[in-house]
């Protein structure tokens, strides 16, 4: 039996040790916003935030998350009430097919919280572990850049005071 808090909601579930956190979120909790691309840590689509740190949900077993607090893309905002980073992605055309977007957003949140992101180079290096086959990255960098300047971000971009 494991206990986790996901986007502020507590869950208790019995899981097989080999169940990946990504599959747990998708199949046990029905939170299909977390995408699964490569299952080897390379593409970043499955990135979620666990106890305040971005992690690959495909390289973590659900049993390892016992007791953890997890944020997924569903916790960022809703269609009617987008989080500022999501809003920026929309405004800057930072997504096309959207497959990489949940991972880009969760990585972006962690980068905005942890690094000053003073230069585009820093943003690009921060995103180097997330693959996008559509946008060419430029617009994703611009979207994140546009949010760095805003005072709300870095403290509570996901409504999560740290």
């Amino acid at each position, binding site marked *: 039996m494991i206990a986790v808090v996901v986007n502020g909601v507590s869950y208790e579930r019995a899981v*097989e*040790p*080999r169940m*990946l956190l990504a*599959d747990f979120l998708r199949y046990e909790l029905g939170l299909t916003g977390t995408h699964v691309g490569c*299952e*080897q*840590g390379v593409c*970043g689509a499955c*990135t979620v935030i666990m106890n305040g*740190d*971005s*992690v*690959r949900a*495909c*390289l*973590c*077993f659900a*049993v*390892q998350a*016992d007791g953890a607090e997890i944020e997924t893309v569903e916790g960022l905002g809703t269609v009617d009430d987008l989080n500022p980073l999501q809003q920026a992605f929309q405004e800057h055309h930072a997504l096309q097919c959207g497959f990489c977007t949940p991972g880009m957003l969760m*990585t972006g949140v*962690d*980068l905005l919280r*942890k690094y000053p992101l003073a230069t585009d180079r820093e943003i*690009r*290096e*921060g995103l*180097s*572990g*997330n693959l996008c086959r559509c946008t060419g990255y430029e617009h994703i960098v611009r979207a994140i850049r546009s949010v760095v300047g805003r005072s709300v971000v870095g403290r509570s971009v996901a409504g999560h005071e740290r």
Partner: protein
Amino acid sequence: MKPPAFEYLAPRTLEQAVAALGAEDAKILAGGQSLVPMLNFRLLAPSLLVDITRIPGLDNVDDWDGGLRIGALTRHHALETSPLVRDRFPVLHAAMAEVAHLAIRNRGTIGGSLCHGDPAAELPGMAVLLDAQLQTTQRTIPAAEFYDGTLSTVLGADEILTDIMLPALPPGTGWGFEEFARRSGDFALAAVGVLIGGEVRIVAIGANEKPIRLLNAEALFNDASDIDAVAEAAGKEVSPEGDLHGSAEYRRHLVKVLTRRALRAAWERTS
């Protein structure tokens, strides 16, 4: 793919962990950033994973006689941001910036990287360069004697790496670290670390089956006028293998160029 089935234990003490590792085909799980991909590929099928990350006290960075004692469970991101590491071992601080991507650095541990032993990984190379002493549940092993091949260490099946001890460097030691990778955060095609202190040390990463000191090249170094000759010798001293990312010849060339740059940087930083 999905990993094969296994049992899972998360002991709270080293004693319990060692006892659990007595089971046949048991495997240690730390940050999982190398082990879980191998499980997902089904390259491994352990009967039991012993998760050591719930054992307290193994993730500190402390003073060790002017050097540092680093707990095996210290995450890459903690090393990357540690002021003690930056001040005492700037070469390690520089290398940490090249290790994988943030989400991987948030999970991966120094102990896991050393025990996985990827020949292109930065931390095993840093351990050799900094003459680390590796403390396990059974003994202390010098970093230079830790690997017996690619992805292979001298550790026993129920032996756990607990601490990495880095001896203090002589004051005024100059350092250089140069890496070439296709993309920021990828494994190095080649990397070179250099220290110029009481002696000169040159370590090549990604150019042999394990990180090695380039003793022949080191012996040629007296001062800055030798840098080109030392770099030339370094390129000859490694024996890289070619793969789809780069031929053996290309990697030799990289070692030569990176050695030259790292030596120059180290020489300029000596005081």
